[in-house]
């Protein structure tokens, strides 16, 4: 038993719903009580979908449990098939139905449904979660629809370069984009355009927008692109094993990753990678003088593995930030996240406890948080700027405008959406230059400084600029928790420092004083610490 207040992921059948709802022509009969119908609103409200998810819930009640719930499952299947005439049927159960063991998949298997492919889903609700459920559903669906096409063992793998003999352009499948994934809709368009400029066609995009017949065309492609490993890694591995299809696993988020992606894919297909002439503004924007203030900005990153790993690379290499925390709730991809963290000299936080994430965030004292909607709330409480980079989503993460994360345009979008929450560079310089002018009274905040200050400053290190500002330049000495004392002239000197860096200076000075086992911090200590730290 585990106490959960807010969760990053829903149960595994919600993952199955994401696959069914992302596709066309698929219907999902879910053996579940009425409360489980809440899942519809994830799609109709958060994703603002104009259609109901293609799911029939059996909505059994307590009084049905004494009778024949299996009969209810069969009736629901018959009615769903008759009404929706799906091209493929998914049959499964949610957590409660798993306990009553009606085995809806087996029941469906024994029914005459006019030859519709039926895929039975076995998603253990008490040990697995949403992304696992989505990946398993996509895998089972593809496997079920392709089982007659699997070549006999020993068949040699098709060459990814066979397009050259067949007199056509090379083509690949884009696997993994789904509803409730982060910006998948726009990533598909961006990557399709990118591939087109490389002379590569897209055969099948799945699950988003695909029909069952499209899944049956998967083997006609020369290679698979595993765009979102959380959803597509198992199916890509199976296609490798069973059909000998090669997989491109580089996720094209960021300039370096997009370049590597193009090189990997073109190399595999035997194609010369094209030269892109200034494909994205990110490299120039990052080199431009305005961006020097981004240097060393402390950034805390948490999200699904795909986006967190990509964000760490972009932040550290392409924007010159300092990554001070990296983690993910994707346990299935924990190894990859740990490896990415290790490269940055960090230990990855693998957790689905948002309070543990918030604690790590506070301890890392970042200047920018890149996270999910959960981290956005935590960052707001801590008074930190934040950009959302990953599911779980809020309706505002499904913007009307084109805003991919992948490819060249994705890099532009990332530059804007990560940098704007920080104070504008030149503005910060100007404030530094003119900080002694009377306009810069305490409490002035940038128009971009979003987020409410925390309710209480438990530790001095967390006191907000406003709270610090309310104290008059200290007459008496103030003590920190560890027994360090700020003398009156130390506090007075500190008060002269602009509020938006004051906490950082306070923290650094206290660290410096502790290291030297000083008891009292006066103005001299402050300047010594400044000199020491600027070396």
């Amino acid at each position, binding site marked *: *038993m*585990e*106490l*959960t*207040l*807010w*969760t990053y*992921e*829903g*149960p595994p*059948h*919600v993952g199955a719903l994401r696959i069914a709802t992302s596709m066309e022509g698929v219907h999902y009969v879910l053996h579940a*009580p*009425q*409360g*489980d*119908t*809440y*899942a*519809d*609103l*994830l799609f*109709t*409200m958060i994703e*603002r*979908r*104009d*259609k*109901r998810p293609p799911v*029939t*819930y*059996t*909505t*059994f*009640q*307590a009084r*049905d*449990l004494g009778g024949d719930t299996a009969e209810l499952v069969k009736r*629901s299947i018959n*009615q769903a098939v008759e*009404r929706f005439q799906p091209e493929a049927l998914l049959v499964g159960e*949610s*957590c*409660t139905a798993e*306990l*009553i063991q009606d085995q809806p998949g087996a029941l469906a298997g024994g029914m005459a449904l006019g030859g519709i492919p039926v895929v039975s889903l076995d998603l*253990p*609700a*008490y*040990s697995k*979660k949403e992304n696992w459920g989505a990946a398993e559903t996509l895998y089972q669906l593809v496997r079920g629809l392709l089982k007659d096409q699997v070549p006999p063992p020993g068949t040699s793998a098709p060459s990814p370069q066979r397009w050259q003999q067949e007199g056509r352009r090379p083509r690949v499948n884009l696997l993994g984009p789904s509803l409730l994934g982060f910006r998948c809709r726009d990533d598909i368009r961006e990557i399709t355009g990118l591939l087109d400029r490389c002379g590569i066609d897209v055969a099948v995009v799945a699950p988003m927008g695909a029909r069952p017949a499209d899944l049956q065309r998967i083997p006609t492609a020369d290679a698979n692109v595993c765009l979102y490993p959380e959803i597509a890694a198992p199916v890509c591995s199976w296609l490798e094993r069973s059909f000998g299809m090669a997989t491109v696993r580089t996720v094209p988020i960021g300039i370096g990753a997009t370049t590597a992606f193009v090189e990997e894919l073109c190399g595999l297909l035997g194609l010369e990678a094209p030269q892109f002439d200034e494909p994205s503004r990110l490299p120039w924007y990052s080199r431009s003088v305005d961006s020097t203030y981004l240097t060393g900005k402390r950034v805390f990153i948490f999200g699904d593995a795909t986006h967190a790993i990509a964000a760490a690379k972009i932040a550290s290499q392409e924007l010159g930030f300092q990554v001070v925390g990296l983690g993910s709730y994707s346990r299935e991809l924990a190894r990859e996240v740990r490896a990415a963290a290790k490269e940055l000299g960090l230990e990855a936080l693998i957790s689905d406890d948002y*309070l543990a994430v*918030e604690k790590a965030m506070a301890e890392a004292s970042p200047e920018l948080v890149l996270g999910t*909607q*959960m981290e956005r*709330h*935590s960052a707001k*409480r801590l008074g930190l700027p934040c950009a959302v980079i990953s599911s779980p989503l809020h309706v505002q993460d499904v913007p009307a405008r084109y805003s991919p994360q992948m490819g060249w345009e994705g890099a532009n979008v990332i530059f804007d959406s990560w940098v704007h929450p920080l104070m504008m560079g030149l503005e910060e310089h100007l404030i530094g230059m003119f900080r002694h002018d009377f306009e810069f009274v305490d409490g002035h905040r940038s128009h971009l400084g979003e987020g409410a200050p925390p309710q209480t400053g438990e530790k001095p290190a967390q006191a907000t600029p406003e709270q610090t500002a309310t104290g008059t330049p200290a007459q008496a000495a103030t003590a920190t928790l560890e027994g360090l004392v700020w003398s009156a002239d130390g506090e007075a000197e500190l008060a002269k420092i602009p509020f938006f860096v004051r906490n950082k200076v306070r923290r650094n000075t206290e660290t410096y004083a502790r290291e030297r086992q000083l008891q009292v911090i006066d103005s001299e200590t402050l300047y010594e610490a400044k000199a020491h730290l600027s070396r």
Partner: protein
Amino acid sequence: MGASTLAEAMANPMLDGVLDAGPEVAPPLEILKESGQREVFCGLTSIVWLHRRMPDAFFLVVGSRTCAHLVQSAAGVMIFAEPRFGTAILGERDLAGLADANEELDRLVKELLARRPEIRTLFLVGSCPSEVIKLDLAKAAERLNRQLLGQVTVLNYSGSGIETTFTQGEDQALVAMTPLMPTSDEPQLLIAGTLADAVEDRLVDLFGRMGVGAVRSLPPRRSTELPPVGKGTKVLLAQPFLSATARALIARGAELIPAPYPLGVEGSRDWMAAGAAACGVAPAQVAAVLDPLVERGRHAIAPHRETLAGKRLFLLPDSQLELSLARFLSRECGMELVEVGTPYLDRQLLASELELLPAGTQISEGQDVERQLDRVRRAKPDLVVCGLGLANPLEAEGIATKWSIELVFSPIHGCDQAGDLAELFARPLRRRSLLSFAA
């Protein structure tokens, strides 16, 4: 029925005209009973407003990840660092042995209470999985109460979707509190059902002006300050979904006052008048306080009535407020009722509402969502009241909707809120007439 005769005695010219149109004896009702797929939240959802009502209480769902995800998704916002509700998620090991599950629950409760010392009442909320595996939360509550020695009161109820729909969760939570209510035969008016604090203050003040001094509420604002109950207690239900609570209070000696529910001017007036009359207030005194409110309320409704009058309304079953809303929207806003769906119909608690509905109103009980949507599409109503899962798809089909969940979060009770209540329904129609994408 007392309420409507009293209403007529109030001699209000405009409403009298409306009331005269109503039948003296209600004709047999057309009730369509449906069974099939239901598109309704389970009782766990009511935690979302109950926890706000009682800030010293914690609601611990004992269930699955689905339960946690449901409450989180229904609440819609995650603005609390540590909300006053959570889920004890059952794992495979808990399913393997119930003895372990009980130990685990005790451990988790103690950890929770250590972290949240301000909690005075802990509700253990049963879910579909906990009921199917027959985890006895009543016993668990008893056991924990013994162990915690009065530091915290532990109660239990079921919010499971196999037993309860949506608002019935509140009914079950209130029933769980009734045994702890002290016994007193002192005369008092007890308002049962969660109201917004400001609305409650207003209603208590109005009763006071009519001369009813002892007005108490269930649930109270502090979970530890439960009102007494006994032979002198007259119960007014503020919400129509409190069947079990009403029975439990009657069993404690209280008297249930039949009345329509305090939605709209007419319902609120009749409801308050019935409560005052039961407490022995003279009709003239009631009229002196309520007549100006009725007058003002009608003025507030008038502009929205212009938007709503003659429009056809279809209510899908959801919050159990549907009959009261239908009565308000047809009688005071002039809407035409196509179908009034309700998850279940308690004829006794809704007798006053059924009497006020226009003759021949099509009521449906239960749901077969696909067939009901077929009826919606055939009828082409001007406005559909429905849950969040259906609203955008219906809008995309060209049908205006009003989400019903807003009705359990917004202050809508009483004469003073009648204009706001009408506005909630008029807004989608006004918005449609505002929008234009033509060149």
